[in-house]
């Protein structure tokens, strides 16, 4: 009996809850460690990025205005869907894949629990010297660009995305250039979770091509990146000079270290604090 001829899948982009091909019609081959072709992914373009930012911006306020309890449940549901795809994700990662998937799912659970807590930890009342009630509340910013590190391709991505969306933002992610497949499988888990379309949009493609467009896109209010070259870091930081983007680049992070990658500190750069005054005298 001859060996079965495998089906080589082309992973598409994930934009607004749909899976379009790149408008550019370009694809990239993905090989495994033995250099055999395992899949194709789309080579995202500037226009794909712009489409993704547009849907992210539109979807964001609905997500931010959902109750914190609901957002927590939706993110926990995402962990459930990832659990069902553990093997597929681990295989796509390769060596050490199972540990990475476990850590990634646990990270999702961690941030799912923050949605209805960070406002209490990070906000507060301010004892001003006068007859005013004064309090500070964290709010989401809008659409955020995420540049995932090459490795760990899944855990790095999840660690950058979760604090962004737990805080009520939407994001457009550029997946690991080296191994984008786990990110694209994650998109399929996301599509079957209850997360509204457009909150996590996933692009695959080349950093050299797309980084400058992330940096200069005026609808992206913040950037969360890890594992970028000095040149790309400068490029991203130049975005701050354009529309005052809040650019956070994580250096030398061990994504497997829970203490280093979890907590409200990671959400802080993607939060705007609003301070409200009201007279309290009659």
């Amino acid at each position: 009996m001859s060996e079965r001829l495998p089906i080589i899948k082309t992973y598409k982009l994930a934009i607004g809850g749909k899976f379009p091909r790149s408008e550019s019609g370009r694809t990239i081959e993905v090989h495994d460690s033995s250099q055999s072709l395992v899949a194709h992914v789309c080579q995202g373009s500037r226009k794909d990025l712009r489409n993704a930012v547009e849907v992210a911006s539109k979807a964001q306020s609905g997500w931010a205005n959902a109750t914190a309890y609901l957002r927590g449940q939706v993110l926990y549901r995402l962990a459930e869907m990832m659990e069902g795809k553990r093997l597929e994700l681990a295989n796509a990662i390769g060596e050490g894949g199972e540990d990475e998937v476990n850590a990634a799912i646990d990270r999702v659970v961690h941030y799912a629990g923050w949605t209805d807590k960070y406002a209490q930890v990070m906000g507060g009342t301010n004892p001003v010297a006068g007859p005013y009630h004064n309090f500070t509340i964290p709010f989401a910013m809008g659409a955020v660009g995420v540049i995932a590190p090459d490795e760990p391709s899944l855990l790095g991505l999840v660690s950058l995305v979760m604090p962004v969306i737990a805080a009520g933002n939407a994001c457009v992610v550029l997946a690991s250039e080296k191994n984008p497949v786990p990110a694209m499988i994650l998109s399929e888990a996301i599509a079957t979770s209850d997360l509204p379309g457009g909150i996590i949009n996933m692009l695959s493609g080349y950093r050299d091509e797309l980084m400058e467009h992330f940096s200069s896109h005026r609808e992206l209010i913040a950037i969360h990146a890890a594992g970028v070259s000095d040149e790309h870091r400068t490029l991203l930081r130049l975005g701050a000079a354009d529309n005052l983007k809040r650019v956070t680049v994580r250096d030398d992070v061990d994504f497997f270290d829970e203490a280093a990658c979890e907590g409200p500190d990671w959400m802080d750069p993607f939060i705007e604090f609003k301070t409200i005054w009201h007279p309290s005298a009659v």
Partner: protein
Amino acid sequence: MSIVSKPQASGIEAPKRLDLRAAIGGGIFEYAPAPESVRPEIADQYGLFIGGSFVEPASGNHFATINPATEDTLCMVADACASDVDRAVQAARDALPAWAGLSGKDRGKYLFRLARRMQERARELAVLETLDGGKPIKESRDVDIPLAAAHFFYHAGWADKLKYALPGRTPQPIGVCGQIIPWNFPLMMMAWKIAPALACGNTVVLKPAETTSLTALRFAQICQEIGLPKGVVNIVTGAGETGKAMVEHDGIDKIAFTGSTAVGKAIAKTVASTKKKLTLELGGKSANIIFEDASLDQAIEGIIEGIYFNQGHVCCAGSRLFVQESILDRVVDKLTDRMSTLRVGDPMDKNTDVGAINSKEQLGSIEKYLSTGENEGAVKHDVCQSTLPDKGYWCKPCFYTGVQPSHTIAREEIFGPVLAVMSFRTPDEAISRANNSPYGLAAGVWTDKGSKIFDVAKKLDAGIVWLNTYNKFDPTSPFGGYKESGFGREGGRHGLMAYCK
């Protein structure tokens, strides 16, 4: 002197409102002058404060700082060049290990000492601020100086409590902080920068604005007086070139800037290729929204407070007024009434409401906006009835109606006593028009309906939202903006994050 009496019975005609307005604003009932009499000693010339001493600038160059209310030169101030900045950074770097290594309690005690001496020398500082910057003495005396001292007092207490401020972190100082501040609230902005930096164990090089250096230099003397370790605070005076040298200096770990959005973006560009940390507090075009169910008299006071406080030289000034259509005429009428009694003139007079424009350059910029406003078709209401002094830089407070959202005066920060009045019909329209700006610093909302006021507050893209009040500040209350109004917060627990690793 008798006051205008109320009508007693029918048949006796009440004085017309216009007459009353004329009587108060137009000269029948003049206030007697109430000048502040203290004249603090001002040296002929000031050096740079580096490493705990006043030193001459390398170039030997000084520039004049003037009183904008009289155009008289107050004294000469050193012009720091790149090598002076380098000396200051070196002094701050040398002082860093000992200051950062000091116990939080002792750092706190130094800050408490600074706060106390500022309170004790408050009158002198207030007069200096008014002489050098043109703001009314009652504002320097009641707002700027007390808040500056309070800021030091508040942060003094944080110095030994940082681990509670930032749970889950072991707060470490960032290092040497380069701080560049504007001329609108000179000493207060200095306090907002220096107090949290020092509390967190950083050392600083601060540059005051070139038109308002005197209170920062007086603060330098206070640092000497209380025995602050040398080099912890360094003050370099100068203009944009001095600031540029700071932004470009490799020995500075963090830049904190308050000023225009254009300069803020230029700074962000300069530091993009470095690892310098950056906080920016930039411009604004804040919306003040008046609903038909607001307490109108209070709202009118809030409008005045919002835009004419400190001659409108306020980054969070409520410069776009949105009035619900049904009450537009009444608001315009009441505003006209109230503004006719605003007293513009000698900042050293305790009765003065609106003082001098900070500089000739700023006056020129405001005047350009005034003519643009009219050229683009808005209607200017010149309702202020004060007589302006012959010398000095002055701008009568005014407002415009017939303003379209596309008009320059509705979009750009004027930084002067100029208000753009627009109307709206529904809360949604008010929110979307208020948010239709690249800025997002502050906003005001006026209504007596509780649920509405919180709903609107939630939906406004602004870092500070004043409900049924405006332009209130406190050291415990975080200040800073959304979008192109900058990033980072100053004050409160949140302000500490900008000065800790």
